[in-house]
């Protein structure tokens, strides 16, 4: 059989083909890693946001409305990104864009929802701040930290806790309507001696707040 050189050549042809495949694999893996990283980061970000959404929804009744569909689509897209077995750059990049848009909308929605959620509490805390400034200020800070869409669930937990504690404090002061009005006017700098009615004065004396309220001339 005349196969000596011919066989040898065949053998080499096979070896060359194998080598070429490995080379291609090697050349693609680095890039793939980068894409994979992007992909994984994106998936994680989406996952975190959905987790926060779930918490905010459950604890603060925050609802993203239409963005749920967008998120749904995004998740579907993220699945497609790795449908070939390797995350595809184009799809990943596309998903990243989608995520940023959704995130912006959600942020804006939260900010609105947050204001509504914390306005009364924060106002009350402001009025009574002088009552226990250190404590109330810490409540205020903890609530205000969650003013922008957080990245961590802990902020939301802290918000939830601060709001609960603040309510408890306010309720413990027994504030009637008149005192509440007076306090609000105090807080807004509009309270006058005229507002110091008996109820108010009684409430002041009962809570030993005489020394804590200062008088000043009102400007016109």
């Amino acid at each position, binding site marked *: *059989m*005349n*196969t*000596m*050189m*011919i066989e*040898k*050549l*065949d053998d*080499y*042809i096979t*070896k*060359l*083909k194998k*080598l*070429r495949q*490995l*080379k291609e*694999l*090697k050349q693609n*893996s680095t890039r793939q890693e980068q894409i*994979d990283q992007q*992909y*994984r980061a994106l*998936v*994680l970000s*989406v*996952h975190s946001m*959905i*987790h926060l*959404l*779930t918490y905010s*929804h459950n604890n603060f009744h925050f*609802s*993203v409305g239409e963005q*749920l569909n967008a*998120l*749904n689509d995004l*998740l579907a897209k*993220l*699945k497609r990104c*790795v449908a070939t*077995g*390797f*995350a595809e750059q184009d799809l990943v990049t596309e998903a990243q864009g989608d995520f940023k848009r959704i995130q912006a909308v959600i942020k804006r929605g939260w900010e609105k929802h947050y204001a509504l959620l914390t306005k009364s509490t924060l106002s009350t805390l402001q009025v009574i701040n002088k009552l226990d400034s250190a404590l109330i200020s810490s409540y205020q800070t903890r609530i205000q930290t969650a003013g922008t869409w957080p990245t961590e669930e802990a902020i939301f937990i802290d918000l939830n806790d601060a709001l609960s504690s603040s309510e408890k404090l306010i309720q413990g002061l027994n504030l009637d309507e008149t005192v509440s009005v007076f306090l609000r006017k105090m807080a807004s700098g509009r309270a006058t001696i005229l507002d110091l009615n008996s109820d108010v004065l009684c409430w002041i004396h009962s809570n030993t707040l005489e020394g804590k309220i200062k008088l000043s001339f009102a400007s016109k």
Partner: protein
Amino acid sequence: MDSKIARERLSSVVRPDSITTSQGDFLATHVAIRKIHLLKRFDMAPTGCADCSEAAIFQDLILNPQNKHQFIMVYGHPGTGKSHLIRWFEARFEQELPDNEVVLFIKRSDNTLKGTIRQLLEKPEVQGIADRDLYKRLCKASAVVDENKLKDMIYHNFIIELHNDDGSLPITLPNVRRKRLEAFLNNEVIHDYLMSEDGPIERIYSKIAENATGDVDTVAQFKEEDLIVSSDLYDDMQREGADPKAIKMAHVLMSDTAPEESAHLTQYLNQFLNTVVQNCAGIEPGDFRQIFQDIRRDLFQNGKNLTLFIEDITSFTGVDEALLDALVVEHTGENEEKGLCRISSIVGTTNSYLQSHVRDNYKQRVTQYVYIPDNVFDENEIFEFIGRYLNTMSLPTDTISAWVKDHATAESYPVHTVVEGANWEFVTIACGKKLCLYPFTKNSIRYFYQNNLAAGHKTPRFIIRDIIEPVVNDALNNIENFPSAEFRVLNANTALTYKIHNQVSDQALSERLMRFLSIWGNGNPDKFSDGTVTYISAIPMSILQELHLPVLDLQQSAAPAPIPAAQEVINDQPSSTADSDQNIPIKAKERVDQANQVLSSWINGEPIDISATMGTSNILKAAQKDMCDYLSSSINWQEEGVSVDNFARVTSTTKTLVMFENQTKGRGFYVLPADWESMNIIMAFIRWREYGSQSWDYPDADFDAYLVSSWGAHVKDQIVQAVSPVAEDHETCYVDALIAAEIYRMVLTGDYVSSDLSHLTSKSLLSASREHPLASGHSLRWTSLLRRIERSESVEQKKKFIRRCFSIVQGMDTRTSGVTILRSQDLAQTLSKVKAQKLKVPATSFESNDAIKSRKDAFVDLRNIEERMNDVAQDELSLAKDKLTLIAPHLDLEDVDDDVILDLAENASTFYQEIEKTQINIKAPSMDRVKKSAKQIAQAINDISDILDETDPLKIIMAFSGDPIAALLPLTSLLGTLEHDLKNAVSQMETQQRKLGDVTILENSENRYNAQLSWIDHDLASLDKLR
């Protein structure tokens, strides 16, 4: 002649120098000269002068009746008889001299300066002069000086004189040229050259050395030709590293202006001659003058006068001017008080010496010039001259002496009793005396005078030396073979030659007869009778019988007219042809004569030179060419079995068809023997060219034409045989070798590719060679042999030669006719024979002694091929094995076909494509050659495999004629490249593999996104809850 007496007397009578003979013999052989010219002024070659007899001159001048001062110069060419005349004057003078006259005869037998002075001092008249002993001592001053030493002295004295030249001599040389000449003469090569036997120093030496033997008429001086420098001499000087000045001088002396320069230098150097000779001889010019003055004074005191006979003034080389000084001094006038005697001097010299050595002021003081012309004797006087010598030698000395005592008168002139030659011719001299001319005839004397004496030698001296002495000697000592072969026949009569050789079978005898009839007779094939005597070629039959020569049977002719009484000087031109060829130019006759002389010498055993392109040699060369041309055109070569090719080879060699026996240069096929017949043939061709201007239009041409045509027919077979190939095996012709060599060439070049010779036809043998690729796969020995074969001549020429061997040319001239017919059947037969013999010719053919080199070369060429064939075959086989060895590891040689080769090429292509894709740096070779020649490659592998065990060289080279090794080259080249590239590929693949590092991870990439997908699913579920 009386041979008994003559045998004893010959040597004493026959002496070319008249002075050495006895007085009696001198007078007995003396022939009065009647054509002397008297001149008052020197003339080199006087003409139109009145003739004067010697007797008249003797009476009027020599006897000096007026007792006056005389200075007489006797001159003429060498050998004209000056010395003889002076001696005759002296002899007569001695008989009639007055009482108070002293005669001094200075001979030249001693012929040297010192010898001459010694002669003077030995005269009884000067025995009493003062200081005689002193003079004698002077003569012995440098008595014996070594020859070479003396010559060197002469040579270097010239250089000394030249070096010290103060410009006072008449001929001057600018300083630069003088120094160059000095350097030139100082050069060793030039020294040796000028000191050679024929050189000037030898000439001068012979005049002053006492033991020298030189030509008596030699003029001791430099000649113009002495200083001409030949290219060989110049080369020798260069080689010996000559002085630059000497080289410059030599350069001038070999240039176009050399003759003028040499003439000037010769004159310049000859000015120093006297001084040099005097220095070397130890004699001052004043010495000589003094001696003469003393002699004259002594004689005057004794009341005597002096008559001086000087045979040859050249004896006084070195002091000649001093001698002339002494001779021209008159005793009267202002010299009277010196007390000198009257001097009458008769001085002999040659024309040239007078012309060049004697200054004009001396010439003007010569009182009388006596000129002896050449050809001084008329025909009858020559007969008489010879008759007197023959008579004198046949007479006893006593008889001569008695006659001299009796005043040597004409009336009492003794005539010998004829013992031999009574039937021969006689010459009548004064007083009606008849002298027998035996062993001469008048015809023979005419012949010898015309033919044996060169121009300028037709003088008594040469008549004695070149005619009388040799002929008499031959007759005395060799009568049975007389005339012997030394006497050459010139202008032999062709008809006579033929008749002699036809009738006399003995070659020696016929040639002897030819000589006798041609020289002693009239040379014509005539036979006539005057009523009593029958003559053969004008020689009486009795003389032939006396010499035991055969009598020819010749056609009877009328007796010739009687010879007129009035005799003329023998004509220099041969008389025998004078009547018949008046229209032939004299120059042509001279040329034919010269050629005849050379041919006569040739048939007498002398070598013949036809190499020169001028002169007689050229005439003979032309005759030989004419003979060859005649034979070339007259022989029908093809009819004689000499093919066109063969004849072309014959004519293309340097050898001529005909060469002369004993020819000095050149070779030929047919050697024309040096005999009378050949001479006649050659002469006929010479006459055809010279007389007929290459035609048969001249007198007696018909006989020449007959001779030539009969000779052509006679030698045809020998010529054909001479040019035909010589081989022991006559079957084998050089043509076989030519064809065999051509087939070898065709096989080696691939013009014929086959495993056997059966397909080789005449047509393919003669068809043009195809274009061969520049590169071949053959072994070095193969290509070397091929180059060797093709180097000798082109392929076209080889084919042409073979074609010519089998061509018949239509037309008369086989060399120029354009119509040829191929004898194809003969060619096919020869080709079959060569093929059947497997391109071999018998070993004996190689040893053939073929006269034609190109024909012999055919065998030599074939042998060269055959000798190398085995080595070539083995080398080729070895090379093929090497190639197969290269292929064997890669291909199964037993299973090779074109598909296998194509598969290999395809695989290789794919391999290189993969190499390229894998970015491995290996250049892919082209597979085209392998793919295109897949069939040839497979065929070559199979062919070579089949021949590997073959031992027959012819079969092997035929197997390789198609160059299968070259066919393998694309494959072996590809395999080599592949082998190399595979190794290279392995190396580069390993490198790339290393760069890839651990590739196991790359290979397990599944489930990499499981976590993310899980989160997504979870998130999707979370979103659902948010709805």
